[in-house]
């Protein structure tokens, strides 16, 4: 059984930004668990990882929240060692791209520890990666490696798309998850506000129905969930189309039955991911459908992701590189009404407001 995020929340709500939710959960983790510490380049500075750790070094001291030299591989190894003796490390990479310097420790060590030693040891820890986008991040500050990590058993990979997902997941991960967790946070989400409720679901690391609908299923990750919700709103208003938006949330352990149920209902599918399509989330969604319900779709799914190239810096190319709001809406309508759907598309480009305000990278 899966809880849909949108329907069963009865508790009082409040508005909380993504960065705010991160700061709240980091703060609570330090307050509630003496064994938690946060380390990463700049975690104790005035920018505080885009506001997600600001003030915590002052509040909890340099033993709990501390800066490190440039040493991604070494830091990850240090975290593993600390976890093995009962501490709970939280490490940060201000760009997910830098985690490639720590791949050996993440994949060959952290992911293997529990199994390789027959369950006698484990290294629970949280590795926070921030995905860059927009404002000329370019080829080395824009990658979103969820598929890369989720391919490897032993890792739990999540992509919180909302403040709610952070509140639902992080406290449980930190308190009780037995192994290493990679959480991929999207920089463009940090400044967005979300309505949150304190009524957490029973299965925190799984998949959400972000919006119910009967005409087409949109399976989305991270910031593409926000994009998909906006598109869903548009197609409802412009064409009366009801899109069901599924926030995959867990990349390594999604609730595939939830996805399949939705596709069974709608018969139409759009997949919207933050990375490349090849060997990415879109591929795994197709694999699961092929295994579970190969004939559920009335037409080939539409897939939205980064173009098959490194990310260009020029704004004109970057705008083409990422799926725009325009394209997302078009994809949904084309699924339901066919390519010649005739509905007027929104004129603004993808997430215009949020992006305009964004002047990255720090």
């Amino acid at each position, binding site marked *: 059984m899966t809880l849909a995020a949108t329907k069963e929340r009865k508790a009082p709500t409040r508005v909380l930004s993504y960065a705010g939710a991160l700061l709240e959960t980091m703060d609570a983790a330090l307050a509630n668990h003496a064994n938690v510490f946060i380390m990463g380049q700049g975690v104790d500075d005035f920018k505080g990882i885009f506001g997600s750790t600001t003030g915590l070094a002052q509040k909890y001291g340099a033993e709990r929240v501390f800066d490190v*030299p440039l040493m991604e591989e070494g830091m990850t190894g240090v975290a593993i060692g600390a976890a093995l003796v009962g501490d709970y490390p939280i490490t940060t990479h201000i760009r997910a791209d*830098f985690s490639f310097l720590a791949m050996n420790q993440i994949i060959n060590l952290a992911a293997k520890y529990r199994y390789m030693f027959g369950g006698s040891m484990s290294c629970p820890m949280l590795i926070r990666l921030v995905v860059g986008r927009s*404002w000329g991040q370019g080829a080395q500050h824009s990658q979103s490696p969820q598929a890369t990590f989720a391919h490897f058993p032993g890792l739990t990979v999540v992509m919180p798309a909302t403040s709610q997902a952070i509140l639902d997941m992080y406290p449980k991960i930190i308190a009780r998850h037995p192994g290493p967790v990679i959480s991929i946070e999207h920089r463009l989400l940090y400044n967005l506000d979300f309505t949150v409720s304190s009524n957490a679901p029973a299965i925190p690391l799984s998949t959400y129905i972000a919006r119910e609908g009967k005409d087409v299923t949109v399976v989305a990750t991270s910031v593409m969930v926000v994009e998909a919700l906006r598109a869903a709103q548009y197609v409802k208003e412009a064409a009366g189309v009801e899109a069901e938006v599924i926030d995959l949330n867990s990349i390594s352990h999604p609730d595939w039955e939830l996805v399949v149920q939705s596709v069974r209902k709608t018969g139409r599918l759009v997949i919207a991911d933050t990375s490349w399509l090849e060997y990415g989330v879109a591929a795994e969604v197709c694999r699961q459908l092929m295994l579970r319900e190969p004939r559920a779709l009335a037409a080939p799914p*539409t897939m939205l992701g980064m173009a098959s*190239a490194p990310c260009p810096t*020029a704004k004109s190319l970057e705008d083409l590189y990422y799926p725009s709001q325009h394209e997302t809406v*078009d994809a949904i309508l084309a699924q339901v009404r066919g390519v010649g759907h005739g509905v007027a598309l929104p004129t603004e480009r993808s997430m215009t407001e949020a992006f305009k305000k964004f002047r990255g990278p720090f």
Partner: protein
Amino acid sequence: MGLIASPRFILYHQPSKAPQGAAEPLESKDLANSDELYRRLFRTTLLIRLVEERVIELYPSDRIQSPVHLSIGQEAVAVGVCDALRADDLVFATYRSHGFYLAKGGRLDRMFAELYGRIGGGAKGKAGSMHLSAPEVGLMGSSAVVASTIPHAVGAAMSFKRQGSDRIAVAVFGDGATEEGVYHESINFASLMKVPVLFVCEDNGLAVHSHRHIRQSYRLQKHAEIYGIASCRVDEGWDMLAIREASLAAVAHVRAGRPFLLEIATSRYMEHVGVGEDFHFQYRDRAAVDAWKARDPLVVDKALTEALRPELEREIEAAVAFAERSPAPGRDELLTDII
């Protein structure tokens, strides 16, 4: 983009050729410390400063939609080092390389076009400020992953040696870069293989907002010495003549077939990334930067600055105009040059 899977093509070309800038002989030594030399170096240093000041002015207009890491305060390093190099020597640099790009002889108009994300840029706008390059004058790719081009310089130098060439390669990096494991791997290998590589550390004492003493347990020169790498530190990092002098000696050592480390103290006047100052965040002292400025020729030598300014500003305006005119890259560029 990405409504459906874009096909990926494999096209065959010849392996890329090394840039073949003509090997110009260095000017005769007697020019050193002459007025003419000072003026030439000063001019390039000032050009870099004025270019970056123009970037600061332009930034609020959102014409440069990309992170910029300014080298204001550090320009003399690039100028002093590059003046000691031959045109066909190669420099591998970082995201903070407006200075090295210009000092190595990169075209200013293409630089502005690149910052603007226009087709006239050296990389057709695909690179932006963080990845400047001008292989035609030996400024190889700059990378925004700290320390990542250090081994590239070692590899290029190794190949020069293999090829029987007397060209050298230069790795430019910040003090923070030396903390990365690949620095250790690179200098060990360079020493073992005796390759003609010059390591240049721009020591501004900071990695983003972190001071060196909380990041490094070692002194860099002592460290290099253990690997059998000779070194020199220039404390007067504002003085392009001193840096040039030290670089000439270093380059001679390298061209004779041994790696060398040049550590140059310098000062970053502006914030780590972006176009503002950041003293109000109090992670560092304004006084230290002010003391540096008090010795900075571009600040002190007002007469020469003002004498050169009009001409340089005209150059800059022409370059900005070039960028403004240059078209943005279109869809045909999105999927080219991938493999």
